[in-house]
């Protein structure tokens, strides 16, 4: 499974039936210094496209959207304690939450890295 990307600048990494979600390198760069994250509720089921969290820099706030239907199984408490992880390591230590997908095929329509790199140049 390769990492997939949304047009809202989230990345999704599906491993062993659990999808880990974060914001992209491009997104954190556009936001600037991240100072606060609001994370979804563990155990709650979200629909694709629902607002699952908020990421705030000193100058702006941006919503984080649920990229697929599913139940949130875990949130990154380290990120809550140190929001700057979203800047320094957005694709690894700065992950936001994990989801157990209701329908993993929803990922099929998302961009791969090559497509996202092209997309993010213009967005």
């Amino acid at each position, binding site marked *: 499974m390769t990492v997939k990307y949304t047009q809202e600048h989230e990345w999704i990494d599906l491993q062993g039936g659990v999808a880990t979600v974060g914001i992209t390198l491009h997104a954190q760069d556009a936001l*600037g*210094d991240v*100072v*606060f994250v*609001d994370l979804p509720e563990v155990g709650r089921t979200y629909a694709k496209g629902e607002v699952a969290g*908020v990421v*705030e*820099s*000193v*100058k702006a*706030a941006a919503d984080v959207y649920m990229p697929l239907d599913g139940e949130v199984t875990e949130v990154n408490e380290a990120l809550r304690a140190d929001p700057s992880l979203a800047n320094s390591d957005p694709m690894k230590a700065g992950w936001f939450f994990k989801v157990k997908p209701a329908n993993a095929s929803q990922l099929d329509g998302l961009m791969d890295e090559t497509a996202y790199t092209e997309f993010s140049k213009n967005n």
Partner: protein
Amino acid sequence: MSATDLKTTPLHALHLELGGRMVPFAGYSMPVQFPAGLIAEHRQTREAAGLFDVSHMGQLRLEGPDAAAAFETLVPVDVIGLGVDKQRYGLLLTDEGTIVDDLMMVNRGDHLFVIVNGACKDGDLALIQQRIGSRCKVVPMFDRGLLALQGPKAVDAVKRLVPGVEQLVFMTGGAFTWEGSDLYITRSGYTGEDGFEISVAADRAEAFARALLDQPEVKPIGLGARNSLRLEAGLCLYGNDIDTTTTPVEAALNWAMQKVRRTGGARAGGFPGADKVLAQLDGTQPVARKRVGLIALERVPVREHTELQDADGRKVGEVTSGLLGPTIDKPVAMAYVDVAHAAPGTRLNAIVRGKAVPMEIAPMPFVPQRYHRG
């Protein structure tokens, strides 16, 4: 507005060279931040010195023997009594006593030097021309460069290039030269720190900025940190915290209106909206709301337009500026609240994404001012 419609300042090429992230601001393409990032730039200014391009602001001269008296008819401020090379904060008012713009003025002896906000400068110029253009010559200098060097080490950097500036004290100015170019420098700024604002000819602005950036104390700073610095310093941003819907007393800018222009003063009134402003000042017509500072008790930034409620869930105000203050390391905000809820220590709830974030009314500035008063 497309990027090509934006105006540029004399430092545009330098901003691009330094990696500035350019955004539209007041009709100009301006750097919101440099590669160091907003928080590093904010700290740089609080700890050493930061260089800001504020050339988008409007510089103008009011010339002629009647200029000070004429300008007093537009602002609720003592202009006639302002000593030579002394600087003062002022407000242009509507006939309803609300704020058209805020500004800085200096008595330069043979003229009054005025700096207004970039987004307002064309309107301000038209208003000043129309109201007092027959009494003094109004000369816009909108193409000049204006640099601000702010921070505790700003004086060390500037005095190396322009000896003598260290003798200025807060809110005074003087004419200097640098490599044959005339500068007018005031010891002032908008960050709460010691610092200087330097007016320089457009064709020398980049060279002077480079000379400042060559000093070990100095780094370039964008509009993002300018905003977080001014908010921590408790200073209003025109368009957010003050505008044509707010009066000076509602905005808690009473300190900007000297006794001589108030009820009972030697030159009381005589400015637009004076009846209303003076009645609010002397308490005969108390204001219903007031600008206050707030600190959040949880680590959630509270942005402009956020509703403030009392413990019973009634709306008692609205935030006009808010962010996580990088120095104080807590969310800070300015807001207008009903006067009954304006006392320091009052607890209110900010409604952020449907959730109540507790906040407390706090005195401003949020960080101590460090102006050089001599």
